[in-house]
């Protein structure tokens, strides 16, 4: 079924006089890789936090994985995965311990945990490193591990908040291959980024400027519409009018 996994209507968040997110409306289909773009301070992270149940919207409504973001935050949390732009694993724990911890947090049974852990380590080629402390892994590996752990409970949606910050292009490419694989298995990916080349990989892209969504379409359509060669040009055209500085 081609159902809608995330549906947001006029979602707004105000901090005092400042409107961080201003009446945004969009839908995300199952299995989509939905790129959520915008300059720093455009309101991406705030919008994402509302979807994850980390903060309440000031007004507007939204549904994630079939649950209302205002009243069913606890249910949403069971059905989503989350990877923050800051590092989301425990440095002082080993690879295995991190896996077991998060499997435990999401209530996976012991048997299930062992199975998933083996799969995961094999897929990442980390089997020999399973007893290494996470802090001594290279950044690229950490991020791949972090993503795998965020999806360990087979969530319906994974929220990735600038997952590839500070990683070299080759690792970023590998990371995106993992994202594709996960999306092909039916998990919806909701990803924020400010690397415009990554925007090209997304099924659809929304561009936020000053708390509003200024454009939302497939990368190809957007480039046509704005008569641009790359997503970078599209973004520049849109962001030129931004009032908020960094």
């Amino acid at each position: 079924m081609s159902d809608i996994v995330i549906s947001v209507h006029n979602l707004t968040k105000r901090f005092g006089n400042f409107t961080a997110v201003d009446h945004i409306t969009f839908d995300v289909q199952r299995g989509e890789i939905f790129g959520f773009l915008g300059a720093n301070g455009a309101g991406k992270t705030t919008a994402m936090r509302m979807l994850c149940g980390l903060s309440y919207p000031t007004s507007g409504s939204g549904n994630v994985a079939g649950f209302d973001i205002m009243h069913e935050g606890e249910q949403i949390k069971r059905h989503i995965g989350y990877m923050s732009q800051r590092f989301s694993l425990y440095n002082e724990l080993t690879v295995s311990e991190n896996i077991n911890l998060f499997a435990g947090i999401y209530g996976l049974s012991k048997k299930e945990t062992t199975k998933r852990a083996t799969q995961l380590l094999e897929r990442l080629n980390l089997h020999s490193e399973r007893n290494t402390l996470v802090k001594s892994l290279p950044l690229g590996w950490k991020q791949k591990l972090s993503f795998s752990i965020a999806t360990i409970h087979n969530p319906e949606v994974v929220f990735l908040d600038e997952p590839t910050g500070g990683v070299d292009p080759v690792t970023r490419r590998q990371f995106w291959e993992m994202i594709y694989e996960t999306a092909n298995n039916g998990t919806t990916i909701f990803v924020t980024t400010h690397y415009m080349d990554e925007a090209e990989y997304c099924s659809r892209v929304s561009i936020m400027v000053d708390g509003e969504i200024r454009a939302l379409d497939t990368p190809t359509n957007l480039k046509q519409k704005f008569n641009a060669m790359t997503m970078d040009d599209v973004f520049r055209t849109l962001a030129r009018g931004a009032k908020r500085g960094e």
Partner: protein
Amino acid sequence: MKRNFLSFVKKESLHILRDKRTMLVVMFIPIVLMILFGFAISTEVNNINIAVVAPNRTDGVTDAVNRLAANEYFTFKGYINQDEIDIQLRSGKVGAVVIFTPDYDKRVAQIFGGLPSTPAIQLIVDASNVNIAGAATAYLQSVLLGTASQQSMFETRMLFNPQMKSAYNFVPGLMGLIFILVCAMMTSVSIVREKEVGTMEVLLVSPVRPVKIIFAKMIPYFVISCIVLTIILLLAHFLLDVPMSGGIGGIVTISLIYLALSLSLGLFISTITSTQVAALLISAVVLMMPILMFSGLLFPIENLPKFFQVVSNIVPARWYIDATRKLMIQGVSILAVWKECIILIGMTIMLLVVSLKKFNDKLE
């Protein structure tokens, strides 16, 4: 959902065990403090150097001097002349000089015969340290009076701590300090560290309830604190000879209440700070100072100005130290300190409620 709680406890314990340096500090500080306060730092007055001026060394005088020399609080430095007194005191060679009048025997006889007389002995004491001077004078008077007559107007008994050992006084105070240090500081820093590093965000997005996160964090620290408690009690009893006369049960009970209170305090600090440095500062400055000043650890509460006496009521350590002293030294049962217990439990509940309210699952 019991499993996710257990995975949390395990994770937290691993964190603590891996951080060897912190572990060492936590185990080491109590031991060092106990030994330091038990042996090195002491308010007892020992080894006061004494010189004697005695123009006429009659039997009565030598008898008195021998008694002084035999007393463990004094070290007899020998006889000196009248004109040396000032130099000896000024140079710090002696702390007190005892001057016998030439007709000492006669005057003593007059005094005890009930006849009018001028004083028989003059004491000159170096009062640059008030505590030492006060204690020295009292000791000297009692020892010298004893030579003159076995009879005395008073019979004094020092109850509970007959040897006036200062360790008896310090051990409960130190316990009040150490547990706050270990529990409050460590829990607050560990929670705030997760906020700072960003892992707290991930935990809050997970289906685990914040209450569980918090209790899972507290359990390992509680276990550590219990180990520290055991170490302290063993050291206090076997090394410093502190009598646990009220029974070990009462002491452990009130200590466990106090541990819970300290953990809640740590939790509270973590809800009002967002950096590890701030959490450390608050634990160190905001918690340590009142404990040192207003808990009766260093100064008796009765000696504080009225205003600070009132302030001391909100310092948890005050109640704990008070109760522990009664339990350890006076040997009363836990029932005699019910008031302190209730106050401590009340404070714990209040802190827990406030912090759990503040520590909600929303970031903003």
